[in-house]
């Protein structure tokens, strides 16, 4: 039995539409991700530069203060307070260094997203190409076989894409990670 010509046309248009609209939206997502990555890179560059400059200035200031304290007969409590403040600075410096590593992880996650988007675009692009190959008139059985082949191809490519996208970043917070010596 020949499939209704209108039905076949609708199926072709549906598949083609899915492919085309998906491609458009995925391209927009990709553009936004690229922009996000650029902004993150710029932010980390600025933050790191400022952090280094502040650290250098504070270290220099601490040296001057210690030199002054050494020269004058400063009360013990003052010396103790300065020492405690110095330790506090160290704690916050360590926290800042840990936090400033965010860009490495977010960059990896964004790269993974981009690879998935490109892979998905290929999969959906192939749907569009496959749909163009469907003749205007086709018997129902042949059309069913053709659609099954498209479905199987999508499944295979999607699985292959999933296997390629190993998730290297599982961190959901910026606390420092485990250390293990073998």
């Amino acid at each position, binding site marked *: 039995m020949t499939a209704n010509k209108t039905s076949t046309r609708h199926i072709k248009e549906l598949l083609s539409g899915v492919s085309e609209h998906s491609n458009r939206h995925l391209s927009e997502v990709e553009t936004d991700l690229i922009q996000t990555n650029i902004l993150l890179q710029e932010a980390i560059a600025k933050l790191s530069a400022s952090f280094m400059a502040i650290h250098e200035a504070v270290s220099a200031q601490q040296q001057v203060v210690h030199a002054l304290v050494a020269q004058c007969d400063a009360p013990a409590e003052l010396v103790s307070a300065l020492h405690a403040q110095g330790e506090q600075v160290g704690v916050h410096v360590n926290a800042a260094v840990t936090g400033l*590593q965010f860009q490495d992880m977010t960059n*990896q996650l964004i790269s993974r997203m981009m690879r998935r988007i490109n892979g998905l675009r290929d999969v959906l692009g192939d749907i569009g190409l496959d749909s163009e190959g469907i003749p205007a008139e086709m018997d129902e059985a042949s059309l069913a076989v053709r659609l099954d082949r498209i479905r199987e191809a999508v499944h295979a490519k999607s699985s292959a894409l999933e296997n390629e996208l190993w998730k*290297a*970043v599982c961190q959901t917070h910026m606390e*420092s*990670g485990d*250390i293990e*010596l073998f």
Partner: protein
Amino acid sequence: MAKTILAVDDSGSLRQMVVFSLRAAGYQVTEAVDGQDGLDKAKSQSFDLVLTDQNMPRMDGLALIRALRALPDYQRTPILMLTTESSDEMKAKGRAAGANGWLVKPFDPQRLTEVVRKVIG
């Protein structure tokens, strides 16, 4: 004489933090931008410790470790992984390749320094 460390990571910001932390502790740190760069630098200069990321272009961390272990000068050199990877599977691969330790990012500078000090003094 200061101990020397080779820090291998394709992330410039991460390398900057490693260098900052370890130089503050008195170590001499050389940077490499990926596994291949790390291997080239290791061949041209001797290091007391190699600290390497896993996921890098051109040559990943595991491949770098295997290549270093094949060099006579690096058969006993401590090699630590510093990576976002935290699965037992990856750690086992690292250990099998010849890594001596596994540090999961992000690192705390004080803890990193303590581990390095423990390994190379």
